[in-house]
């Protein structure tokens, strides 16, 4: 026993830096920017950061299960966009001039949210899952197909027109704070609940264990009696439901939508997951890590805005962060071989 402790607990400064590179990066850069511009640590800014992160986190959590099982979902962003459009259409003010459905009285917003989530899971989730498992189309291509299909649907659905005039209840909820606490936006509460549910699902249920098993070795998972087909389909359904939820949140946060809402968000979500430790080789990834990965992106973006860096440069920095973070991830993997 004593031998084991000394072996595993031996402190290695390089290893420590590599393993905690993200936290170190976030904290040190935040301090730097905060010193340059004290408004960085203002309530309003932190709330804004949390609200942005909330939406991105829900998308990342949705895609994480799919990634851990060695699949992918490139339709994520477009699904978020379509869900946003559907929610916005249903929740337009009755007196709004260019209302899509003039005779519709806006129903309860939570009912809309739940129905859209279920609808997305049963359509896009199931179809993605079936295409990948039954038709054996590689996930990368299969879900890319779905990406363009969903975009097409969104264009038809909105008539390529922006949708505005959302009911106050909906937009005010999205911009409001939880119990009047300035720092915590309502959106963050939804995300916290989703994180808790996903953490429970991943760590305390057979579904989670089976998910990691499939990611670790799909062939061994099948031999162990895990129905990989069913599991894969369910992972896409959970993903689709969360994309729908993110769409619901995003449309309200933006106060209006268009068919281009959330375009390309899947890549941020994939990058966030990977940076947060969802292994590119499948089988690993934790909810807390994913939060780190997503936060890194959002904090970096805000920091660069505060420093007055040109948007063009923020893209370059984001790209570098993705590559470096994933290089570090791979390094950990290779070292253990």
């Amino acid at each position: 026993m004593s031998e084991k402790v000394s072996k595993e607990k031996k402190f290695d400064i390089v290893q420590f830096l590599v393993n905690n590179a993200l936290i170190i990066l976030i904290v040190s850069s935040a301090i730097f920017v905060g010193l340059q511009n004290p408004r960085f640590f203002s309530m309003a800014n932190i709330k804004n950061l949390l609200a942005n992160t909330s939406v991105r986190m829900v998308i990342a959590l949705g895609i994480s299960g799919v990634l851990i099982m060695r699949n992918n979902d490139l339709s994520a962003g477009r699904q978020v966009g379509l869900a946003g459009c559907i929610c916005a259409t249903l929740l337009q003010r009755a007196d709004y001039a260019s209302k899509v459905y003039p005779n519709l009285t806006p129903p309860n917003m939570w009912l809309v949210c739940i129905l859209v989530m279920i609808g997305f899971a049963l359509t896009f989730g199931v179809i993605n899952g079936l295409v990948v498992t039954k038709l054996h189309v590689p996930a990368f291509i299969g879900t890319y197909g779905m990406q363009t299909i969903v975009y097409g649907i969104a264009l038809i659905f909105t008539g390529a027109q922006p949708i505005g005039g959302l009911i106050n209840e909906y937009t005010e909820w999205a911009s409001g704070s939880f119990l009047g606490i300035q720092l915590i936006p309502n959106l963050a509460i939804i995300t916290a609940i989703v994180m808790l549910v996903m953490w429970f699902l991943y760590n305390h249920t057979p579904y989670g264990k089976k998910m990691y098993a499939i990611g670790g070795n799909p062939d061994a998972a099948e031999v162990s009696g895990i129905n990989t087909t069913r599991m894969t389909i369910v992972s896409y359904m959970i993903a689709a439901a969360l994309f729908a939820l993110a769409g619901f949140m995003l449309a309200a946060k933006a106060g209006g939508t268009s068919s281009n809402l959330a375009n390309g968000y899947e890549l941020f979500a994939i990058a966030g997951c990977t940076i947060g430790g969802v292994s590119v080789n499948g089988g690993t990834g934790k909810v807390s890590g994913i939060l780190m990965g997503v936060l890194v992106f959002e904090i970096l973006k805000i920091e660069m805005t505060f420093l007055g860096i040109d948007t063009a440069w923020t893209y370059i920095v984001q790209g570098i962060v993705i590559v470096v973070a994933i290089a570090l991830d791979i390094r950990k993997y290779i070292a253990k071989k």
Partner: protein
Amino acid sequence: MSEYILEMKDICKSFPGVKALDHVSLQLKPGHVHSLMGENGAGKSTLMKCLFGIYKKDEGQIIYDGEEVTISDPFDALQKGIAMVHQELMPIRDRSIAENIYCGRYPVKKIGPIKVIDHEKMNSDAQALLDDLGLGFKATEKLGTLTASQMQLVEIAKAVSADAKIIILDEPTSSLTLKEVDKLFEIIRRLTAKGCGVIYISHKMDEILQISDEVTIMRDGQYIGTWPSDELTTEFIIAKEVGRELKDLYPPKINTPGETIFEVKDFDSVLDNSFKDCSFSVRKGEIFGVAGLVGAQRTELMEAIYGLRGITSGTVYYNGQTLKIKNPEDAINNGIALITEDRRGNGIFGVLSISDNVAVASLNDYLLFRVMLDHKKIGEVVDKSIQELSIKTPSAKTQIKNLSGGNQQKVIISRWLAKEPEVLIMDEPTRGIDVGAKYEIYSIIGRLASEGKTIIVVSSEMPELIGICDRIMVMCEGRITGIVEGEDMNQEKIMELSTKFMG
């Protein structure tokens, strides 16, 4: 100039938990066939992989053509004139035979300043080579159209075309028919006539005695000795290979088979060249062996019973009742478990902990409130397994890939014991694990059978089957050629049945 083209001196190589090679030496003369013998796990393939640059040796010297050399990778080995035909083929099925032969060293021609691949030359050279070796294949055909044994011959042709000074053949005849073996021997004789040295690895005594000039025997990673083959007899080789009385290798039998309980009827594969008309029955508490050569379709039959492979017909009965098995999930729910042959490929979950590896097949047995996993109960089951099977590991949270092969195998056995199956099928349960761990696994098998479980053991090691089984079924080319028990349970009889349809 020394009389040897190759000398390997005091080669050592360790893997985590196993010393695979312990001061092994080998001397090869030009124009000679030098056989390397030993049981599975003796270190033959490891030694050759050190020579071919796949593994890096920890210690020792390689003297090639009178000079000490370091071989950094297979490409380097080929450049130096060392070619290897691997036990497991790595064919590129969708490319032509010619492209497979010249893979990585395609002939080129120049069009102006640009070098392009000279397909015409490649195809005609390949065809000339195939014709010269008397192999009736067309060089432009896709490799995938050939059978496994024909691919093996193409692989050998590739080694010949490399103009190597040393050719390593690692169990080249394991999938060849008798006629093809003759063809191979003809090719080997032509190579040696040109002064090429051949290192030949095989388990088949008659082949070794027929083709080789010298024989080196290894055991448990150690060098035992080298003898001219005309001084050798089969008995002598086995005694040297095993190095001890067979009795020590297996625990005493403690199980008593009861009534017939598990029946397999009329299994036919969806594939033409796989198993056909397979029916057999096993008794409760019996250890039932399945023998045969590589390619006998034993694994395929077992995986089909388990629902992993497609069948056109076939029924499984347990206790007189028909079992509906469409996939492994069904098999497990009906009390059947399979420990697969390919431990890395579809056995272990490398990145997951020992705990997760044990619990993965029985997760639904540890539920609290019907949805939540009872981690405490899982911990108890895992700790009990680690203790009972004496799995050597720092903790239950260790990733399984850090364990030795024998301990990984025990973890997989634990996985199924947690599920308490009635029928346990074990495919090559002791492949690639050391002698001590083998004994422990035999003991576990014996104990399970004595508790009334039905055990089916597939193995390529005949002494192992003879040592632990009550009866042994023999397969050849997808068909069951007989079941031996008692007096008939000997290597000669099993070998005869294993080769019934060959030649």
